[in-house]
């Protein structure tokens, strides 16, 4: 495991060295070029690189990075693994580190992002190289920043400080809209602040090293601090700097915006092209006023393109969704082997499990629905045997093909709660969920006529090692 990347720049350099970064020096327009290039990256193969622009029309020194997490290769490098690490290996490594929680914070007193300070006449439209992602978006969104807040009722408790990624619509020179749902930890901070009649201080860190971005996208418990999880993920204490208001900000951030969620204010926000591949619609959402912007010299703005899946956002919500579901399932059913919740933030979940007795798989499927994340997302759960790799869809489809008899293997439960962003909801927030039992029936479930399954010839492993070595040599 490689050590921590101290900032986004160091990660971009590492991606470059691994052949996973394209640098565009030609002049580009903010629209439609930025989004078009990012979308194109999703269409050019499995190991698509990050992209870095340094000549954006109208800006003097803007730099934009996109698709930084946008392939399994980049995801592996972010975790400090070999770039060709298999999805399954990335899952088990992510889970292993996840269970080491908590790590520690390293508090220092200065950071590169303090180099340039703007504390009057803040105009985010001129400071940040903003651009529209999708043509129906209601404006320009900061969509890959870590928003940091504390609980006004429990201010000195580090464990309830929160680092989360929420979409932020830039609505005025120093005015942002923020989208949160009640399940988000910041929603608790906002509710406490509004009950007290106070504004909620926030810091917004843009352009971070790759681990804290993944942690900001992970559904941690309210009392788990993302920095402490980032520390175990990167294998060393997580370095932060405190703002004057007392919020901890990643040392390596490129830009830091400081401001307040305005008490009791709601304004029109959206739409925004969201992770299910549909626009979100417009709502009245809370508002943040920015008082101060700090940034590094020649800052790099990091953004995530959101389009019809798969795009970069799907990598941000992949292992970060699968691991917590797996660990919660495992507490109830130690037989569970692995969980693939990679698809559209876990709207579809594939679980592989040992089978205790006939009918067991359906209970595993039901338990997925009652995990914290499952309550609002898991809609279709596919349960497969322990020897089927849930990350290999060819194997999953084989299991569905031969092990499912719809007469007894499909369970639907009507009218369950679901995230509003799932467009299949009817009415909004309510959906029917389904469990597909794609495991082999075992006694006393004696359905079907399953004889002996085919297995692999003796010496296959030795031959695989030999042939892989030969191929690697030949392709050098």
């Amino acid at each position: 495991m490689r050590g921590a990347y101290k900032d986004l720049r160091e990660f971009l350099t590492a991606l470059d060295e691994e052949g996973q970064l394209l640098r565009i020096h030609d002049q580009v327009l903010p629209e439609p070029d930025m989004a078009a290039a990012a979308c194109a990256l999703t269409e050019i193969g499995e190991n698509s690189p990050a992209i870095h622009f340094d000549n954006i029309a109208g800006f003097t020194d803007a730099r934009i990075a996109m698709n930084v997490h946008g392939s399994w290769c980049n995801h592996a490098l972010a975790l400090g693994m070999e770039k060709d690490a298999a999805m399954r290996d990335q899952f088990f490594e992510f889970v292993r580190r996840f269970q080491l929680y908590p790590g520690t914070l390293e508090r220092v007193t200065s950071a590169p992002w303090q180099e340039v300070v703007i504390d009057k006449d803040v105009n985010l439209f001129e400071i940040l190289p903003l651009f529209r992602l999708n043509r129906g978006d209601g404006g320009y969104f900061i969509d890959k920043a870590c928003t940091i807040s504390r609980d006004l009722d429990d201010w000195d408790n580090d464990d309830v400080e929160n680092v989360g990624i929420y979409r932020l619509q830039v609505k005025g020179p120093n005015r942002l809209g923020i989208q949160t749902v009640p399940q988000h930890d910041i929603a608790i901070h906002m509710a406490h602040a509004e009950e007290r009649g106070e504004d909620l201080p926030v810091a917004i860190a843009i352009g971070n090293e790759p681990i804290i971005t993944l942690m900001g996208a992970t559904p941690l418990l309210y009392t788990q601090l993302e920095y402490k999880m980032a520390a175990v993920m990167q294998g060393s204490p997580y370095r932060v700097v405190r703002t004057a208001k007392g919020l901890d900000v990643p040392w390596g951030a490129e830009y830091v915006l400081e401001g307040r969620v305005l008490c009791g204010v709601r304004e029109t926000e959206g739409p925004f092209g969201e992770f299910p591949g549909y626009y979100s619609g417009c709502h009245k959402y809370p508002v943040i006023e920015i008082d101060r912007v700090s940034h590094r010299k020649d800052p790099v703005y990091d953004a995530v393109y959101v389009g019809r899946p798969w795009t970069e956002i799907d990598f941000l919500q992949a292992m970060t969704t699968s691991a917590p579901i797996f660990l919660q399932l495992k507490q109830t059913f130690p037989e569970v082997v692995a969980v693939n919740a990679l698809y559209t933030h876990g709207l579809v979940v594939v679980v592989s499990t040992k089978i205790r007795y006939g009918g067991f798989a359906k209970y595993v499927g039901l338990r997925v629905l009652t995990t914290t994340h499952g309550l609002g997302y898991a809609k279709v759960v596919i349960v497969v045997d322990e020897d089927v790799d849930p990350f290999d869809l060819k194997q999953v489809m084989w299991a569905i093909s031969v092990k499912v008899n719809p007469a007894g293997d499909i369970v639907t439960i009507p009218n369950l709660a679901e995230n509003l962003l799932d467009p299949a909801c009817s009415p909004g927030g309510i959906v029917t969920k389904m469990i597909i039992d794609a495991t082999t029936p075992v006694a006393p479930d004696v359905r079907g006529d399953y004889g002996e399954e085919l297995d692999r010839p003796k010496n296959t492993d030795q031959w695989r090692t030999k042939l892989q070595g030969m191929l690697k040599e030949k392709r050098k």
Partner: protein
Amino acid sequence: MTSPTVNITPSACPRCRAGELRTLGKSPVGGVWTIFGCSTCFYAWRSTEPEENVDPDKYPAPFRLRPERLADLKTIPPVPPRRSST
């Protein structure tokens, strides 16, 4: 890899056609683009964007808004009641 663009000074919001507009920002390199904003629906656009984002007549129908409907938008989260002072 720039595309053909327009540079329209707006008279109405492309999305909701309200007339109260403001200039939100100008390109740090002078004269390249201006960002406008609608004070009614908060739509924002850059003068150099494709026509469908800057011209009210070409703005896509599925994304249009009517100012009188904005008050009906759902408020998320609702503003909680203030705690009573003791």
